[in-house]
């Protein structure tokens, strides 16, 4: 039975959704997720109320609903809220956390499918499968894809825009209007989408010029440009009722928030960075230390292949240039030294599809070169000659061998890093301990606090200074991950003073929280230290004379 390539793509997408959904079950709640849960629930209720004629388009209700977290566009929050209402509240087939996070998991599957489809169209099945698997098996991306946040979803919508744009150039049929809508959805996901026109615009100029010089710039595919310029903003407007009240003012407010965003603390190569100028190489080094080494190596080969074949095997409408510009637009701002670097790789994840497609191309090229070499060797060539002629078996064996070792390496990195993937670094760095030796960022968002909840539950009930996990504390209690009797003690000094237990989530700039606790508890000795591959990520302290929780 011959399986259609498209079916393989769908199976890989399904495997991705399942993998992300299972993986996120052990991942703690990110500080920002709590905000998005709340906003998403309210957004979803507003839309549900609208379609069930429970209410109309009243400005007051829109303001009350969409003012919440209006510094981020609504798409993922709305989908999270709808997913929660349907999968948890109505159908009861998913836990609350999983229901909120499920749309991001689905989008990650969509991304794998799109990468597979584009690679299949341009290079072949082997390249497509390897590219898709490389994308699925990225430690940090898998982690982010399991959160109800925007960083993995914008990678999907970014690449979906690139894909739709490319299809629009190739087919010039239905795709021109689709590219505008998809771009609008990207805008409605995260502000990274504003960088997309740099990639698409430059690419368009090149291919349109090649098509017909000055005349080409006007006549090549004008519907694509019109679609991006008109349908993109229009789609954003439609899905974001907050803009209905004051379109220009609220867009300005949204962008101003991000243009003047506070610089959070971020450790990089042993230094705590919280003000520009930042090192120009943050994106480069962080990428080199967080993507599986085998994937990087295959990607480097793929890039070499693309460069070598740029004239001999030029593809229609320069898709390689498009992929490279896509990655460049995503990474570019972080070379300026002024763009905030906190959050690191999550902010330039739209570069990953390009890297993974290059890995697919590079791995298959290397395997086929090896197969050709072996076939040319007489004894092996003769042995292979006796095998069925219908299939280039030596090719398949070589591709299978290279692909399976590549995937094994990526899988090992990816699953070793979970569920604390923000602490994980690749083999080049020396894993999590090597990353710590290099002074690379340990983690952010307070996610790791989930790992100490079982230890807290072993202690006599007490108020807990929950540090960076404070926003998530109520959710941990609600989800039953923490028994009753361990309420959040509150903010910093006063919280520590009222607490009987205290935790510190280890980041360089959080060291001060250890010292606040030492001062209050009279000891430097924690009772438990949560570690990821030996690297401390959370310390738990206990006051020697316990403060009861009801004090």
């Amino acid at each position, binding site marked *: 039975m011959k399986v259609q390539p498209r079916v393989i793509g769908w199976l890989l997408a399904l495997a991705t959704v399942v993998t992300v959904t299972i993986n996120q079950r052990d991942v703690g709640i990110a500080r920002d997720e709590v905000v998005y849960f709340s906003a998403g629930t309210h957004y979803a209720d507003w839309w549900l109320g609208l379609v069930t004629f429970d209410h109309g388009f009243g400005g007051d209700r829109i303001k009350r609903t969409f003012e919440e977290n209006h510094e981020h566009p609504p798409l993922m929050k709305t989908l999270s809220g709808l997913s929660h209402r349907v999968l948890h509240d109505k159908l009861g087939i998913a836990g609350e956390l999983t229901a909120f996070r499920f749309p991001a998991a689905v989008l990650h599957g969509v991304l794998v499918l799109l990468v597979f489809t584009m690679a299949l169209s341009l290079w072949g099945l082997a390249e497509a499968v390897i590219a898709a698997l490389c994308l699925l098996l990225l430690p940090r991306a898998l982690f982010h894809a399991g959160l109800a946040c925007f960083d993995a979803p914008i990678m999907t919508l970014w690449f979906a825009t690139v894909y739709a744009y490319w299809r629009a150039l190739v087919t010039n049929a239905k795709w021109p209007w689709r590219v505008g809508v998809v771009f609008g959805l990207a805008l409605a996901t995260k502000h990274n989408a504003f960088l997309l026109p740099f990639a698409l615009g430059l690419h368009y100029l090149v291919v349109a010029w090649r098509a017909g010089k000055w005349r080409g710039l006007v006549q090549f595919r004008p519907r694509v440009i019109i679609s991006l310029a008109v349908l993109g903003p229009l789609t954003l407007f439609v899905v974001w009722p907050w803009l209905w009240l004051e379109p220009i003012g609220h867009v300005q407010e949204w962008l101003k928030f991000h243009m003047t965003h506070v610089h959070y603390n971020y450790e990089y190569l042993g230094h705590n960075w919280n003000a520009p100028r930042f090192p120009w190489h943050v994106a480069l080094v962080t990428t080199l230390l967080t993507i599986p080494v*085998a994937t990087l190596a295959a990607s480097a080969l793929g890039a070499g292949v693309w460069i070598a074949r740029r004239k001999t095997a030029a593809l229609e409408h320069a898709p390689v240039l498009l992929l490279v510009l896509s990655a460049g637009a995503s990474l570019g701002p972080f070379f300026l030294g002024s763009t905030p670097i906190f959050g690191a790789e999550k902010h330039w994840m739209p570069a990953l599809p390009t890297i993974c497609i290059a890995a697919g191309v590079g791995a298959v090229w290397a395997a086929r070169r090896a197969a050709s070499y072996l076939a040319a060797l007489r004894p092996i060539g003769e042995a292979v000659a006796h095998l069925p002629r219908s299939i280039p078996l030596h090719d398949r064996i070589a591709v299978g061998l290279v692909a399976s070792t590549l995937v094994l390496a990526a899988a090992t990195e990816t699953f070793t890093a979970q569920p604390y993937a923000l602490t994980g670094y*690749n083999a080049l760095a020396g894993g999590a301990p090597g990353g710590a030796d290099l002074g690379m960022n340990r983690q952010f968002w307070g996610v790791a606090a989930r790992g100490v909840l079982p230890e807290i539950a072993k202690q006599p009930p007490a108020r807990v200074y929950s540090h960076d996990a404070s926003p998530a504390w109520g959710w941990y209690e609600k989800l039953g991950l923490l028994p009753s009797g361990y309420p959040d003690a509150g903010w910093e000094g006063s919280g520590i003073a009222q607490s009987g237990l205290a935790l510190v989530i280890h980041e360089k700039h959080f060291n001060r929280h250890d010292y606040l606790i030492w001062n209050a508890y009279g000891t430097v000795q924690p009772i438990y230290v949560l570690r990821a591959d030996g690297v401390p990520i959370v310390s738990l302290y206990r006051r020697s004379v316990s403060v009861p929780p009801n004090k």
Partner: protein
Amino acid sequence: MLPALLLVSISLWEVCSTRHAADATPDDAAWNRASEIVRAGYRPGDLIVFAPDWVDPVGRLHLGDLIPIDMAARMDAARYGRIWELAIRGAHAPEVAGLEPVSSNDADGVAVRRYERAPVTVLADVRDLVSTAKTESAGQSGPTLELAEVGFAPHRCIQVIPQAGKPVRITFPQLALGSQLVGYVGLADVFKRRDIRAPGKLEVELDHNVIASAEPGVDDGWVRFEATTTPGAADLTFIISATAADRLICFAAEARK
């Protein structure tokens, strides 16, 4: 052929290396054995340090009961004659730089080394004398004795928040001086350092002469200053200033024999 071999080799190396890195850091059993070695030879007043610095929480988990807060928040290590270093991954603590261990053990990956040296004799520690100090030109706050974060490390130090452009003078009357005055100064609070980028300034005045000074910036950490002094009692003044408000300047100093 070579590219494929390279890819396969890198992949197989990565599989082995990743699993090895994940399991290579000593576990609690190893730390317990290291802790037993230290406890068997420990004497009150011994300094215990860990390397690399990121493993410090694990070290304190196992030996924190032997580390008083003021030892963890020390000015420097010069007053300690015996130092225990517990290190993993071939690291060394800066406190033992240039010293040779008098004993060395390995507890399943945790190196336990003991160092001995002649400690400095401290005649006076200004942190013990804050209550007797005279302050002129009061600042926004201080002087107060704090356990502060300076350069991402703990330090027990005298904190002053001077008003912008208005120096604060803190005089320790008739301080018992030795032949050397050693001190450190830095800017406390990472968020203040992020939001206010101007440096602070500290000058040490003896007999109306500035004998030492330091100008710690936001990325300088715990900055050392020192001066040669004549043994005997004398009024010693620390002048703390900043060009910006809300600058948390924290210092410590010892008069050494």
